[in-house]
């Protein structure tokens, strides 16, 4: 008996087809990977199964019975649970309250019984949780456990996980996989969405690959090479892997010493005594799980937040008190994590968005906008960085995430910054676009600029960075040449263990 069978699922949005005639089956106790680039339609398909999105055509069969899933509550009644990429948690409520809200009323007689059950289930699957903690005090990994435990408390038959590992340290990933294998062994089916191929090969029994909204193939990951999987994901005409040489930097461009910052926002992480240098002609990477101070660090360098003057120096000049426009004039380019809203104004055209950070060049001395050069520059960004947009007057929000990211990086790079600070350069970007972005960053480095990258994607950091460190709870690990950092060590740094232990010596660097 199939646990779940989809046949002919189709979903169209204005201007694009998210899912085209997709059919697949999931067996009981199977860990089924759903692979695909961003915009391939993975999330839409999962939302259809979970009842959040209604398909235009197609049938869903659940345990051999045809069903129409009207909403998430319906799906959960059937035994389908889903953990979204962005958690459905309420930060100002406790763990127990969050879980109670996700369960049908009256499943537990009282709070005490619920808490008891939460402890039982979380212990059984090796996911320690304190039911009385407030969710905003939990780490991202712990928040994910809350989501999973919430699913487990209802007679769970199918668990859908949307890119669950993108927010975890390598150690946490290991623990999650252990839990998932135990769940599968007990008969629960798991649908695992990801674009990380190595994870699929480690964990999954079977993989379905989506490309441009269509099912492009199915395989047993254990018998398939990473290269073959990638090929199924991106199609035939995209080059797959590139290696970049590691270099040594020149004179310091950005010097940060004893940087401290206490943000006003209680949800933000403070910065605790950070010090490091970015030299000309090198890429420095800082790894870290989201919410450990990366955003704050970025805004302290860009000038959105200010520190004591001497804590941030550009070319030896203290700039800690300067505002973003003043720092930009000194040659600082910034690519923030949040693309719409901070990197670009959603409702403005691409031309206007180019003007936003390029105003020093595109405005004459009377404050008039130089229209033609501006349009030319925008077109150049689109051409050089292979941005797929209707034209240069298209609204920023009409671009897909990857294309918008290429646009923003292109805009910053073409201004020839002396220092480029880039948060998650390829997050949610497909392989083809990632290659364009990596090439651009390496080029910029080779032209002598300093590049600082804040990312959660360890693979990427090892690939393009010359020196590496990690940030955890606002503190920075040592920043060492990439060849001297093993993946285990980076993982420990990400978890806040900065002191060296003997056990991780001699492990090979991740390449």
């Amino acid at each position, binding site marked *: 008996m199939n646990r779940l069978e989809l046949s002919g699922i189709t979903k169209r949005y204005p201007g694009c087809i998210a899912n085209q005639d997709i059919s697949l089956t999931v067996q009981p106790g199977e860990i089924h990977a759903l692979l695909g680039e961003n915009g391939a339609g993975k999330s839409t398909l999962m939302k259809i199964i979970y009842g959040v999105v209604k398909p235009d055509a197609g049938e869903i069969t659940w345990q051999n019975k045809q069903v129409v899933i009207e*909403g998430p*509550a319906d799906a959960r009644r059937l035994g389908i649970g889903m953990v*979204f990429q962005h958690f*459905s948690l309420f*930060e100002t409520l406790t763990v127990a*309250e969050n879980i109670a809200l996700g369960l049908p009323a009256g499943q537990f007689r009282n709070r005490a019984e619920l808490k008891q059950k939460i402890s039982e289930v979380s212990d059984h699957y090796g996911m320690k949780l304190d039911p009385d903690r407030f969710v905003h005090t939990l780490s991202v990994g712990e928040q994910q456990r809350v989501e999973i435990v919430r699913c487990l408390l209802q007679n769970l038959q199918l668990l859908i996980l949307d890119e669950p590992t993108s927010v975890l340290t390598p150690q946490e990933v290991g623990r999650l996989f252990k839990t998932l294998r135990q769940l599968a062994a007990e008969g629960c089916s798991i649908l695992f969405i990801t674009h990380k191929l190595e994870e699929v090969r480690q964990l999954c029994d079977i993989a379905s690959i989506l490309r441009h909204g269509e099912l492009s193939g199915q395989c047993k990951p254990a018998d398939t090479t990473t290269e073959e999987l990638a090929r199924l994901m991106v199609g035939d005409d995209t080059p797959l892997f590139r290696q970049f040489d590691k270099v040594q930097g020149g004179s310091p461009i950005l010097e940060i010493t004893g940087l401290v910052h206490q943000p006003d*926002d209680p949800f933000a992480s403070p910065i605790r005594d950070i010090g490091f240098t970015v030299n000309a002609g090198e890429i420095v990477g800082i790894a870290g799980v989201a919410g450990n101070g990366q955003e704050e660090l970025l805004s302290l360098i860009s000038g959105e937040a200010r520190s004591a003057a001497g804590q941030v120096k550009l070319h030896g000049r203290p700039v800690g008190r300067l505002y973003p426009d003043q720092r930009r004039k000194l040659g600082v380019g910034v690519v923030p994590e949040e693309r719409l809203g901070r990197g670009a104004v959603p409702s403005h055209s691409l031309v206007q968005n180019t003007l936003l950070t390029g105003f020093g060049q595109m405005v004459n001395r009377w404050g008039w906008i130089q229209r033609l050069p501006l349009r030319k520059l925008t077109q150049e960004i689109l051409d050089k960085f292979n941005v797929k947009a209707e034209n240069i007057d298209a609204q920023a929000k009409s671009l897909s995430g990857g294309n918008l990211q290429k646009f923003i990086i292109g805009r910053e790079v073409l201004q020839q910054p002396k220092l480029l600070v880039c948060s998650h350069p390829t997050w949610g970007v497909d392989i083809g676009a990632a290659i364009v972005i990596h090439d651009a960053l390496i080029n910029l480095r080779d032209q002598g600029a300093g590049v600082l990258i804040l990312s959660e994607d360890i693979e990427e950091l090892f690939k393009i960075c010359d020196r590496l460190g990690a940030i955890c709870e606002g503190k920075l690990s040592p920043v060492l040449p990439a060849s001297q950092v093993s993946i285990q060590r980076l993982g420990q740094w990400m978890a806040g263990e900065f002191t060296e232990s003997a056990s991780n010596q001699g492990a090979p660097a991740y390449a």
Partner: protein
Amino acid sequence: MDIDLLTNILFATIRTGTPLVLIALGELVCEKAGVLNLGQEGMVLMGAATGFIITVVTGSLWLGVGAAMLAGLFMSLLFGFLAISLVANQVATGLALTIFGIGLSAFLGTEYVGVGIEGISQLEIPLLSSLPVIGKVLFSHDPLVYLSWGIFAALYFCFRRTRLGLTIRAVGENPESANAIGMRVMLVRYGAVLFGGAMAGLAGGYLSLAYTPLWSEGMSAGRGWIALALVVFASWKVERVLLGAYLFGAASIMHLVLQGLGFSVSPNLLSMLPYIATIVVLMIISNDTIKAKLNTPLALGQPYRPQI
């Protein structure tokens, strides 16, 4: 100060504070669900006018109170339709509702200005009301005051202890997540808005039928706005709303007391007292910015569009 004067001051404090308690509790529920309704003032006036008119026409005070609540409910339904169903900007819609309410209530009530009625009489609770001081201060009010306490207790319990309370908070904090785990966001938001409307209407009815049994144009005198500020300063906590409302009540009768005692200060300065006092005291109790931020409904004022 002699004990009788004190008793009278406290008694008047509760009476003056009651409409604020009602409006602010209604708005609190509304904001907890993530909807910012700036239409209080209009809803209160509509409640006051409608309640008064119905009472004059039918002769029944309780029909009047019912009509006041219905008027508030109707006004908030209008708001809900615009701001929730049609996803209009909540601030603009709320302001429009206030302006609409002020105008319409004045229009409806023109012929009733100066008409006198016998207001809702006090209900002295047997035994308890004969206690010294407390008896007069707490147990000799009209039934609507007791009702306001009942509603306060119900809301306190609701937000502390019940799933309904959690659901409302969840919807106000993160409607997308709430929807993802199967809550009916629209329904919860409509419910909260309608509750807020009924409460504002009830407050209006209290003003025109119990507090000063008469109708005059704009008689709510900005109470809708004060209640709105109360909710913010009380950092969305039910018990602080109650405290703030009575503080305001105390301060606003203080100028009468001071004048009565013969202090010669400009009456204009004195009538500023309640506003200043409310702001100062509530600033002190909501001093802790981190806590205040944790209490603020995160999605307050943000329209919610369900995915299709």
